[in-house]
C-alpha cells in the first residue's frame, strides 16, 4: 500500500491510528486464509472416521446453538463497548468490555464441556482424521477466543488504572475488530462443521 494513502490532512506523517487500523484489517484478512485452511482440512477428512464416532453420533446441535448465540451476543456487547468509548463514557465501556469477556468465558466453558463429552464418547484427537481435524479447527478457534478474552480484560484494566487515555480509543476499536472476527469465524464453523454434518 502506498504510504500516502495513510497520511492525515494536516501533514505527511502517517496517522498512528490509521496505521494500526490498517494493520489490524490486513491481519484479519490473513486470518481468513488461516482459518480457511483449517476448515478445508476438516472438509477433506470429515468422512474418515475410522472406528470412532462420526459427526452425527456426537454433535449436540441445540447445545452448540446456545454457545453460538452466546458468542453472537458478545459481539453486541463489544460493539456497545466501542460505542461507549466513542462517547468517552469510560465507565459504561468497562462494563460492556467485562460483559463481553464473561460471554467469551461462557463460550469457552461450553467448548471445554463439549470436548469432555466427545472424549467420553470415544472421539479423541488421535481417534481418526475426522477427530484430528475437528479438534485442530475448534481448538485454534478457542485459542483465539481465549486471547480475545485476555485482550478485553487487559483493556478494561488499563482503563480502570487510568492508562487508557481519551485519545487511545483506537485500542478498544482494535480489540473489537479482533473479537468480531472471532465471532464471524465461528458463524462459518458452526454452519460447516456442525449444521451441515449432522
Amino acid at each position, binding site marked *: 500500500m502506498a504510504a500516502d494513502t495513510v497520511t492525515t490532512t494536516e501533514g505527511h506523517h502517517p496517522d498512528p491510528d490509521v496505521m494500526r487500523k490498517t494493520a489490524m484489517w490486513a491481519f484479519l484478512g490473513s486470518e481468513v486464509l488461516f482459518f*480457511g485452511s483449517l476448515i478445508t482440512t476438516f472438509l477433506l477428512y470429515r468422512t474418515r472416521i475410522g472406528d470412532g464416532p462420526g459427526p452425527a453420533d456426537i454433535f449436540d446441535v441445540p447445545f452448540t446453538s446456545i454457545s453460538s448465540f452466546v458468542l453472537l451476543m458478545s459481539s453486541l456487547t463489544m460493539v456497545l463497548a466501542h460505542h461507549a468509548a466513542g462517547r468517552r463514557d469510560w465507565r459504561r465501556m468497562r462494563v460492556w468490555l467485562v460483559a463481553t469477556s464473561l460471554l467469551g468465558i461462557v463460550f469457552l466453558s461450553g467448548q471445554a464441556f463439549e470436548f469432555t463429552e466427545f472424549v467420553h464418547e470415544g472421539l479423541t484427537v488421535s481417534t481418526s482424521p475426522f477427530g484430528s481435524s475437528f479438534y485442530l479447527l475448534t481448538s485454534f478457534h478457542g485459542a483465539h477466543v481465549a486471547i480475545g478474552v485476555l485482550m478485553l480484560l487487559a483493556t478494561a484494566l488499563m482503563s480502570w488504572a487510568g492508562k487508557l487515555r481519551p485519545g487511545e480509543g483506537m485500542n478498544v476499536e482494535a480489540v473489537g475488530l479482533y473479537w468480531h472476527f472471532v465471532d464471524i469465524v465461528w458463524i462459518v464453523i458452526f454452519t460447516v462443521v456442525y449444521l451441515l454434518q449432522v
Partner: protein
Amino acid sequence: MSEATTNRRHPTPRDYWMIAGILFVITAVEVIVTYIDALDDVLAPILIVLSAAKFFLVVAWFMHLRFEAKRYRRLFLIGLVSAPILFGVVLLTFGVLIVD
C-alpha cells in the same frame, strides 16, 4: 477521525440491538431447518445463505465495514475472496464437496 469514511449515518445502540435480534432469529431458523426432514435436499443452500447473512450483518454493522474507508474493505476482501477460491480449488482437486 482524519481519514475518509462513508457518509452513511452511523448506527446507534438501538440499531445494534436490532441487528442482534435479527442474528438471534437467523440462528433459530438455522437450527429449526436442520430438524425438518422435508428440507434435506435443500438444507445445504439454505444454511449457507443464512450463515452468509449472519456473517455480513456482523461485518457490516458490528465491525462497521459499511461505514469505513474503502481501503479497509479492500484489505478484508482480499482474504474473503481469495480464501473460497483457493480452498474451493483444493477441495475440487480432491473431489470433495461441503456435503455429500
